[in-house]
């Protein structure tokens, strides 16, 4: 344990990290996108079934009863940034920390650095182009492939992920893993198959996957694709087979957003997770009017891992959780 006082990253890596952070800021400055440093601590947080927030405890409730409300470390700057968009901020980016409970491993740390940005009036395909431009400023000759989620499933697994029956999906998940998946939801089975069977077979370089299944829409708009399948206008970027970024053509309909929050609550209850109140400030901002926009969040530590050829996130951070 005594050696853990030292940083996980070498000084050379820390210098590269510092250069990358400067290059990212420079990229947006040149494009007149405004940096915003929104709060990391809030009374509200996400309700996603699969994302757990870290929350604070009141150290002295009798002396400070007013601060007994739970406060959450933010899992992304998304809600605050959308409130700024609804206030007329125009294009904005945030480069800061995000927190997710119990996520620790070679590619995960409970506290990590996230780059998130929003482009007003853009759709997800325009934003995918900008993701390519941003990565190309750091890796000039990067190979780029774009492919729909459905085509990847057909290419590698010979099934249409949008139309396959749930029972068939569950039996594929059982073969890929264990009996524990026999009654899993559509979204979880698709995630397993994608991560275990498709992700390792993606090409080297930057792969942009778009048109996600509608059951994985999160905060993206839904639409019909050219073949009449219901899809979500969501994309993910993979860099050398590692999940790097997740983007949406943003949902702006407050009624639909309210319904999705309620569905989150139902799923949380079903899985025995504590209820989390929906962020009323976000809903009020959407009620006031969220401009049409596309937004994306990118893991900066993972980006640096790929630039360095590092196989552990600990090697690119000053102090990962094991050293804190």
């Amino acid at each position: 344990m005594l050696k853990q006082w030292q940083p996980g990253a070498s000084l050379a890596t820390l210098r590269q990290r510092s250069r990358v952070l400067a290059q990212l800021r420079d990229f947006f400055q040149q494009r007149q996108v405004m940096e915003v440093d929104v709060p990391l601590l809030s009374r509200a947080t996400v309700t996603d079934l699969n994302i757990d927030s870290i929350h604070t405890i009141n150290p002295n409730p009798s002396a400070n009863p007013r601060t007994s409300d739970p406060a959450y470390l933010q899992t992304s700057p998304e809600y605050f940034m959308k409130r700024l968009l609804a206030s007329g901020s125009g294009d904005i980016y945030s480069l800061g920390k995000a927190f997710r409970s119990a996520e620790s491993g070679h590619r995960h740390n409970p506290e990590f650095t996230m780059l998130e940005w929003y482009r007003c009036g853009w759709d997800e395909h325009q934003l995918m182009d900008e993701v390519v431009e941003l990565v190309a400023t750091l890796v000039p000759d990067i190979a780029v492939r774009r492919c729909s989620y459905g085509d990847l499933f057909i290419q590698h697994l010979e099934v249409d992920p949008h139309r396959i029956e749930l029972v068939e999906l569950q039996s594929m998940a059982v073969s890929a893993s264990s009996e524990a998946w026999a009654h899993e939801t559509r979204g979880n089975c698709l995630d397993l198959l994608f991560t275990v069977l498709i992700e390792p077979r993606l090409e080297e370089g930057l792969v942009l996957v778009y048109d996600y299944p509608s059951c994985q829409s999160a905060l993206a708009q839904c639409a019909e694709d050219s073949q009449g399948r219901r899809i979500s206008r969501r994309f993910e970027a993979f860099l050398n087979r590692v999940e790097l970024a997740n983007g949406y053509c943003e949902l702006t309909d407050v009624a639909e957003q309210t319904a999705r929050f309620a569905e989150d609550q139902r799923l949380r209850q079903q899985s025995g997770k504590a209820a989390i109140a929906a962020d009323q400030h976000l809903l009020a901002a959407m009620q006031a009017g969220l401009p049409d926009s596309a937004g994306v969040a990118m893991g900066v530590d993972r980006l640096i891992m790929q630039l360095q050829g590092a196989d552990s996130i600990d090697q690119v951070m000053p102090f990962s959780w094991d050293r804190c």
Partner: protein
Amino acid sequence: MSNYSTNEFRSGLKVMLDGDPCSILDNELVKPGKGQAFNRVKLRNLNTGRVLDKTFKSGEQLEAADVMDTDMQYLYTDGDFWYFMEPESFEQHQADEKAVGDALPWLSEQDMVVVTLFNGAPLSVTPPNHVELEIVETDPGLRGDTAQGGSKPAKLVTGAVVKVPLFLDQGEIVRVDTRTGEYQGRVSAK
């Protein structure tokens, strides 16, 4: 026995999988940003020695395997079984050929080895990483050939055959790495 959840899986933990005791080699959290977490786990089946890759849902549990590594002294063999003794309790265990397996060419009486017990019975035997054994059969040594390369086969007292330098003779004691079967050096002349 108790159960272990995926978040308790650590390298070296012994668990039951499909009826066989397994040792966990590696446990990696896999979590899509918006998706459910799962664990990609590498395990060694202690019965067959085979290494498996399995994907578990995070939170899934496996039963703990009653597997214990115990230091024991090798006593003797009667041809069918090999007999080992726990030095503190003097308790003896008999292991069959399957359990002794790869350790067989390195076992010499009185040596300390690690016997892995599964439900109290020997599952496998691991010799020390290095053993010192006498050469019982080899071509005559070439005097003065210490500088040249070159090697020749030598049969050791346990039956193992290893490659040794040309200058060594019958009756000399050599040090061998049991993991690779490679000659490490001459210990002393008899």
